[in-house]
């Protein structure tokens, strides 16, 4: 079942130095119980895409686009109804849980508050549900831990608390923005495993935002690759890794030092990401692309269907159509 559909989402920020085109014409779909990976380098618009879905863009403007959640248009919803969806039906966890938890309340208190607000239950019921949730996310001796303040927990435990809070309302969509980036590798793999478990239990769709292609390969069913505010390729995870089409995706995959084989020289993508305030006409990737041709400088490529569920935004593939 299609749970969330994003079409032509465009978000801009107006700064003194010019208009920042943070997210430009982004479209994707999320299916029930599946994970969509959103991958790209810092500043490519991954997080802004997620925040736009949640309508949490106070400094900027969602210029155009549709976000359709179970048939409802989120971008047009009155704020009151949006509040019920935000955190209730679509929940979000962030990279640094310490910044998302209130330092002066115990973690138990904060989870109970979320439950009471969204589920309108009594405090008593909420409290026993909270203990169950802490147990579910693998926090040892949940009764005692519920009385802890965020700073008393380790990074991994804090992320578990965030996950407990996020799933407390049984959301249909979980947006996870770099959930393991701040964690050590052995802890990160525990958190990923926990997310997988909870997904199969609650049939959530997960939007997994990360810069780590390894995490994508482990977790995602489908992948959207972002570059300079746009989706350049979107494909089923197996296809993307086996046969990447967009030159940027190819470049990214070639850049990875293989943990299994040892190379003598790493391939790189020359140059760096263009300034989002001052994007070139034509393709955003033209300066760094080894296959750039004249048309790349002149016209903007669009995301086209190249078969087997793969979409790519590159002139090399548009000619064939």
């Amino acid at each position: 079942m299609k749970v969330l559909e994003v079409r032509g989402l465009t978000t801009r920020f107006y700064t003194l130095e010019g208009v920042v085109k943070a997210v430009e014409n982004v479209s994707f779909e999320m299916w029930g119980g599946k994970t969509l990976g959103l991958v790209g380098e810092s500043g490519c618009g991954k997080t802004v895409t997620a925040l736009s879905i949640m309508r949490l863009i106070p400094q900027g403007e969602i210029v155009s686009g549709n976000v359709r959640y179970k048939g409802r248009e989120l971008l047009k919803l009155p704020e009151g109804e949006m509040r019920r969806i935000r955190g209730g039906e679509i929940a979000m966890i962030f990279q640094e849980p310490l910044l998302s938890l209130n330092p002066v309340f115990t973690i138990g208190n904060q989870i109970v508050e979320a439950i009471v607000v969204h589920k309108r239950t009594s405090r008593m019921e909420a409290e026993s549900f909270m203990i169950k949730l802490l147990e579910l996310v693998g926090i040892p001796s949940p009764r005692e831990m519920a009385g802890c303040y965020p700073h008393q927990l380790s990074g991994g435990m804090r992320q578990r608390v965030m996950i407990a809070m996020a799933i407390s309302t049984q959301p249909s969509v979980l947006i996870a923005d770099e959930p393991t980036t701040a964690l050590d590798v052995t802890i990160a793999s525990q958190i990923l495993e926990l997310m997988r478990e909870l997904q199969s239990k609650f049939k959530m769709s997960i939007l997994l935002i990360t810069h780590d292609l390894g995490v994508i390969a482990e977790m995602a069913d489908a992948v959207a690759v972002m570059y300079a505010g746009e989706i350049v390729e979107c494909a089923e995870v197996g296809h993307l890794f086996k046969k990447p089409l967009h030159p940027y995706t190819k470049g990214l995959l070639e850049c990875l030092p293989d943990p299994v084989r040892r190379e003598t020289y790493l391939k790189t993508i020359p140059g760096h990401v263009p300034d989002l305030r001052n994007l070139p006409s034509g393709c955003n990737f033209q300066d760094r692309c080894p296959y750039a041709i004249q048309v790349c400088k002149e016209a903007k490529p669009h995301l086209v269907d190249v078969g087997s569920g793969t979409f790519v935004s590159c002139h090399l593939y548009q000619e064939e159509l």
Partner: protein
Amino acid sequence: MSLLSVNQLKKYFPLRGRFLGSSGYIRAVDGVSFKVNSGETFALVGESGSGKTTVGFLVLGLLRPTEGEVYFKGEDLFNLRVEEMRRIRRSMQMVFQDPYGSLNPRQTVGGMLKEVLSFHHVVEPDLVEGRAEEILRLVGLKPVCKSRYPHEFSGGERQRIAIARAISLEPELIVADEPVSALDVSIRGQILNLLRELQEKLNLAYLFIAHDLAVVRFISQRVGVMYLGKLLEVADTEKLFKKPLHPYTKALLSAIPIPDPGRRKKEDLLSGEMPDALGKLSGCRFSSRCPYVREKCRREEPPLVEVEEDHFAACHLIKPQAVDSYSDSDSR
């Protein structure tokens, strides 16, 4: 003779108690020994809080150890006079994780390099300008960059500047503390390639501190795996990745997400978390998380022993093939 030789290094940080007086120590580094040869890369890997960075600081003489010695080219770092120390520091430089935090925002790149070059009298005063340009070229920056300020550069370029500053004194050893973890994938490769290139050109040795094992595999010849202030395994990089011996190293390797959906794994994950380095730790440091833990592991600390040629591990379950223990082994 090794360029750098670290011997039973310990660093305990005293803890201020809740009220008055000290209430114990954080044993950040607790008896670490290794050697780095000239022109080679020795990597220290481990999770946060394992003591990697503290080892880096100790090696550079930026912290005084609680116990143990550091020899650089045969000289005992902590028994040198101030002038001698200053002279030796020229030969050992550092590159940090966040280049923006370690560059002066009010100084141009050229100004910074020139200051370093003239302060240490690396070249004659009239050659300073030319040498600064030469160094920039060496790290892949255009000479025009010298009149710009750090904020005008991207993250990757800033790391190049930090590297330029480190090599300007013609060091023999660079301690690189997570030099690429703040960088994006497409840029990370550029910096790793640069580090390798410079190593060959200038015969540099690196003490490379990192948590990313894929990066470590690319850059280093030998690796030491740290956990709670101790080395649990030391080996050639290839050996360590092909045939890890210590249960922790095995767990660490299998926890890396591999960028290949076909190799998606579901095998046993390491449970629990690293305990903190407070108080008395008895037995093997890893015993609280080890899936193979025995009674003996909780009681007795295993020494780091040579299990195979040039492959050291500290674990009771590993039977050494040739039983000669690591020089000055870990036993107390």
